């Protein structure tokens, strides 16, 4: 495999956690709830995955445990923002701080313990004969395939089904959605919980595929990059895929430049994704000065209907 192909494969592998987290975030935000707890939920997902896998050795149980934990965190965020109508930003920040602290606390005893195995890969040997496609798609892990499926499914769901129409209505104009007979509050709860489950899965993916041992703060801001990716992707699953792989490539590029024996210190290479995030956001802001960003119109607003419940 030449350098470009290797880079593409590595970009997909390190872009997958970003992609899954971004998709979870899109689901949240399409329903009108800002989710800034991404980093904390990912950390909790990763630490849960590590503990469950070390104790049970079963990937199925691991994923179920991750879903359970992140669903609880999502439920807390939904309760704060939907029922108590608290500020989405502070609630998300609190979730991130709490998740970072709790994951460090419960992860302390297993910190640095390597996992006995990483997530199994789907070896599609019949693809090996085909030059480029075989190299890229021949040996991907299960969660990467799941993320491909998820992108297609979410795109279809949001844009082609009546449930998706309802979801968009909840995020754009909850009052109208309410008149249509959609139970806005109930569905906001549902989407925040499902979104959080995906974000937790992203943390588990980071641990099970990319770096198979738990370290305190191992997400290193990837949760926040996923928050920015939602904006780059303009709340669209397909764009999310492209943007996530772009950042996955940036993530691995630094590592690869280092391998070539470059003189640039690794610390500066590690800065690249963070600086590029800001620069891309600035570029989008400059280009879309007078255009809509594609953001759901009621994003961040609590929906209050007189005399409900």
């Amino acid at each position, binding site marked *: 495999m030449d350098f470009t192909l290797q880079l593409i494969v590595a970009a997909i592998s390190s872009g997958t956690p970003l992609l899954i987290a971004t998709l979870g975030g899109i689901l949240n935000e399409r329903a009108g709830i800002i989710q*800034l707890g991404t980093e*904390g939920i990912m950390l909790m997902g990763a630490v849960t995955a590590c503990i469950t896998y070390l104790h049970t050795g079963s990937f199925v149980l691991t994923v179920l445990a991750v879903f359970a934990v992140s669903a609880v965190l999502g439920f*807390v965020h939904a309760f*704060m923002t939907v029922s*108590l*109508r*608290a*500020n989405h*930003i*502070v*609630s998300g*920040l*609190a*979730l*991130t*701080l*709490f998740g*970072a*602290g*709790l994951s*460090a*606390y*419960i992860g*302390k005893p297993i910190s640095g313990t390597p996992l006995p195995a990483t997530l199994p890969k789907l070896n599609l040997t019949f693809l090996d004969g085909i030059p480029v496609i075989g190299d890229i798609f021949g040996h991907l892990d299960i969660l990467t395939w799941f993320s491909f499926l998820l992108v297609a499914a979410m795109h279809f769901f949001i844009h082609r089904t*009546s*449930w998706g*129409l*309802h979801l968009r209505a909840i995020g754009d104009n909850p009052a109208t959605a309410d*008149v*249509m*007979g*959609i*139970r806005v509050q109930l*569905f906001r709860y549902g989407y925040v919980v499902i979104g959080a489950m995906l974000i937790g899965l992203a943390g588990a993916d980071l641990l099970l595929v990319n770096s198979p041992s738990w370290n*305190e703060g191992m997400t*290193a*801001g990837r949760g*926040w*990059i996923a*928050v*920015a990716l939602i*904006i780059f992707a303009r709340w669209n699953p397909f764009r999310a895929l492209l943007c996530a792989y772009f950042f996955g490539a940036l993530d691995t590029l630094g590592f690869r430049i280092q391998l070539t024996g470059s003189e640039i*210190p690794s*610390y*500066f290479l*590690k*800065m690249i994704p*963070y*600086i590029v*995030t*800001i620069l891309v*956001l*600035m*570029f989008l*802001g*400059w280009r*879309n*000065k007078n255009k809509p960003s594609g953001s759901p119109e009621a994003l961040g607003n609590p929906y*209050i209907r007189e005399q409900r*419940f």
Partner: protein
Amino acid sequence: MSRRNSVEAVPLEPAAETAGGVRPERKPRFAFRFELDPSSKAAPWWTPIASVIAALVVCGIFIGANGMNPITVYAKMLSGAFGSSFGLTETLVKAIPLLLCGLGVAIAYKIAVWNIGAEGQFAVGAVAATAVTIYFPEMPMWATIPLMIAFSVVAGGIWGLFTAIPRTYFQVNELISSLMLNYVGLLLLDYLVFGPWRDPKGFNFPGTPMFSDAQSLPLIGDTRLHLGIVFALIAVVLYALTIRYTRWGYELRLIGANTDAAHNAGINIKRHILIVMAISGGLAGLAGMTEVAGVAHRLSYGISPGYGYTAIIVAWLAKLHPVGLLVASFLFGGLIVGGYSVQTIGLPSAISEMIQGAILFFLIAGDMAAKFRLRRSA
């Protein structure tokens, strides 16, 4: 009583029963309901206290589930932080950077700007102060200390502007940019202490050479408490006076209360955001200076135990009030010291981070819940 369980069953057109604008009343499931009470404007004074207690209870459950007695752990933290004169001065030493960073976060939040980048601003402030000792090693104290202060404030201020400029001119959400800059600032610090600034005589310890006495802040009395506490107290007083009595402070309050009204009143909001973020970053940068020159006496890896993030909670717990900031930074200084002290019984100091996050949760939940009233349904 019929409840719709499936949305698919609902036609997209208004149903016949709602077409006339009359919607059948859904029977409430409970005889009581929560309502937003229009008469309560501010959350009551006791919510911060209640939220601290609630957070301790919930974290106690986690600690208990982990096989420790939460009462023992909390007693250990309490006695470690406030039980001895050593613990008390350590708590004050930790309160200094928290107060300075918390002030920075608070002043930015006064105009509804979310600066969560105090951690990075703290780091570059510490780096800039250390640069003075590296590049001007032989200067006398009366020149070194003011230059360190100036360097750290300017560096932190520039880091703040890196957030303010994208926000004002390119509509970049300041939450994301300030957080990304935290990682950049910390990586810069790591590069310097592992690379060019590493002490050649330091046995591979990731840190710069120790500062000389002329490069260190004077200590107060016979303790580890340093002159930084005076800076922090002056900063609080200036903050309180500026916000309350100056025209500029009035403009800040106006922007925070109603951005549109402030804009219509002819206030240049962009300029205010730039100035406030520069001040906000400068305060966090100064905190970095006091930490390297007052406590560590060298720049080293992991110099901040997350002061910048804790400062967000300090500012919120204080409700941006100067007296509240004093109390909250003292309490959280104690929480950090208490977190260290549980390490002696084999627990990770991350306990204090967990409690901090939980406090923030209960604080916002309490503030909102206090605005609701339980009403009997008609």
